[in-house]
């Protein structure tokens, strides 16, 4: 298969109109094209560009006979969603590791403007510290890792914030939030909602439809993470920067002080870690292989009945 078509298989250069017609291995003769051209009634035409993802952006397999049992593939996640997802994953891991290292140098938390070894704490994490003076109750001190941890933390923060901005701008532009993440009207009844919760509580494996679209709990959770937790963690992080707050003092004053900002930063990070754990668990329950494949290649296999 020519190189460009090979690239196209992964959706980066997806053509307007019908995308996956080019992902067909047998050479496309005129007959095949004609077969595709007035589209079979089942295939929805959706104008999709590389950044779009639509359930209906599906495949037209011009196989000589419809009897040939080929499992179709169709696009699930747009290249934008996949690329930003994995950059965010990498950054989140870097932020988590470096964040834990920074906390280890002073595993005590306070409320208000100030806090140190001489002041009462809001709470302590019962771990050893990487500094002599911190009263942890342990007889030893861990190695200091704050140099590279701070470097890594801020670098990963920059990358994830810029990635997030790209995702937000493109997401608004392409209608990703409205189409893929905003709960559908039908989902917002109590019956739908409680049935979704009940399904989750029973650890039921998701049905076929959920391989193509998010369920209502997923939509609400993702929107919460994107529009509440991420902004909060950025805000509380910036509120700890002495230079940043010199220009924008309200960012820290609104939170009740620099140590309050640090404590809140810790709790928002915990919430994000909790999301990550549930997210991985859900991917596992739904079928690790297929979900990973969808997020890496952008495609998911459709069962044969749907062809």
């Amino acid at each position, binding site marked *: 298969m*020519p190189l*460009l*078509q090979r*690239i*196209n298989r992964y959706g980066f*250069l997806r*053509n*307007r*109109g*019908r995308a996956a*017609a*080019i992902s067909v291995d047998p050479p496309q003769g005129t007959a095949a*094209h004609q077969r595709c*051209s*007035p589209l079979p009634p089942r295939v929805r035409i959706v104008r999709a560009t590389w950044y779009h993802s639509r359930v209906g952006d599906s495949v037209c397999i011009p196989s000589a006979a419809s009897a040939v049992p080929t499992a179709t593939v169709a696009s699930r996640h747009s290249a934008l969603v996949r690329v930003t997802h994995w950059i965010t994953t990498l950054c989140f891991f870097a932020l988590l590791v470096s964040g834990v290292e*920074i*906390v280890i*140098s*002073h595993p*005590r938390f306070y409320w208000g*403007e*100030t*806090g*140190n*070894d*001489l*002041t009462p704490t809001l709470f302590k994490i019962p771990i050893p510290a990487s*500094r*002599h*003076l911190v009263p942890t109750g342990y007889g030893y001190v861990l190695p200091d890792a*704050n*140099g*590279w941890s*701070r*470097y*890594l933390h*801020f*670098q*990963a*923060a*920059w*990358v994830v914030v810029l990635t997030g901005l790209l995702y937000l701008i493109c997401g608004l532009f392409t209608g990703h939030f409205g189409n893929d993440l905003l709960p559908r009207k039908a989902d917002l009844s109590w019956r739908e909602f409680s049935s979704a919760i009940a399904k989750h509580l029973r650890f039921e494996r998701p049905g076929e439809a959920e391989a193509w679209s998010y369920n209502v709990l997923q939509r609400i959770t993702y929107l919460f993470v994107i529009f509440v937790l991420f902004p909060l963690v950025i805000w509380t992080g910036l509120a*700890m*920067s*002495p*230079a*940043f*707050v*010199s*220009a*924008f*003092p309200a960012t*820290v004053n609104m939170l009740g002080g*620099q*140590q309050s900002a*640090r404590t809140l930063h810790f709790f928002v990070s915990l919430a994000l870690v909790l999301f990550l754990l549930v997210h991985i668990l859900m991917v596992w329950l739904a079928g690790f292989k297929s979900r990973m494949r969808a997020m890496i290649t952008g495609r998911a296999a459709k069962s044969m009945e749907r062809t």
Partner: protein
Amino acid sequence: MSEPSRVEPSPRKLSRRKLITTGLAATAGVAGLGVAARIAQKYGLVPPDHSGIYGLGETLTYASQRLLTRHSLAREFSRSQISKPPFANEIEPLTDEFKRLQAGGFTDWRLSVSGMVARPASFSLDQLKSYPSHTQITMLQCEEGWSYIAEWIGVPLSQVLDVVGVLPQARYVVYFSIEPDTWESIDMADAVHPQTFLTYGMNGDQLPVGHGGPLRLRVPRQVGYKNVKFLTHLTVTDNLKGFGKGLGGASPEGGYAWYAGI
């Protein structure tokens, strides 16, 4: 037949167009980055530790904070918010030279100023105290996470720089402690900032030795480690390459960022 006009264009053709566009965009992007780097260098937006794997993040942080905070003032607090007692971090064992000066009540303590200045000079503590004294009630926060608020008394560094006459090409002030291997540097924006103090007093009293007395540089818009204790020497320079490994301080040589406004 109305449909044929909607037959998809050949993917190959479209891809070629896309390739050319992408190529042009990439070229423009690289050229743009080059220009941006030039401009950043010209306006002093590139930190000395900009190379290496964390250079991107450091440069973005320093450049954006320089643009946003060149003249902004660190938050000041009310007298009632002063931490009692202020927490004094661990200090290295004091050198014999320090102990000798301490025994003499620091009367022989000197702060020498050299480098790109019109009139290199050496100041005693009394000379520094003869300039109008300034106070600030600001927070000292450590990169580890703890913090305290104190009243700091001293003379703005800009006052002393005016006395010695800084040459126009100056870009950094490098400052040294009496403690071995303890030195840092700041750019001129921080050096002439009104809250950057040569600090000799704290909370209405002398600056305690535990807090860097008799003389400490106070840079309230950066975290603790830029606030060097036991200050004895300043050098004004246009280039940090000639100092140590060229990273601009003991902290960057020890793996910490040169710019510590975050």
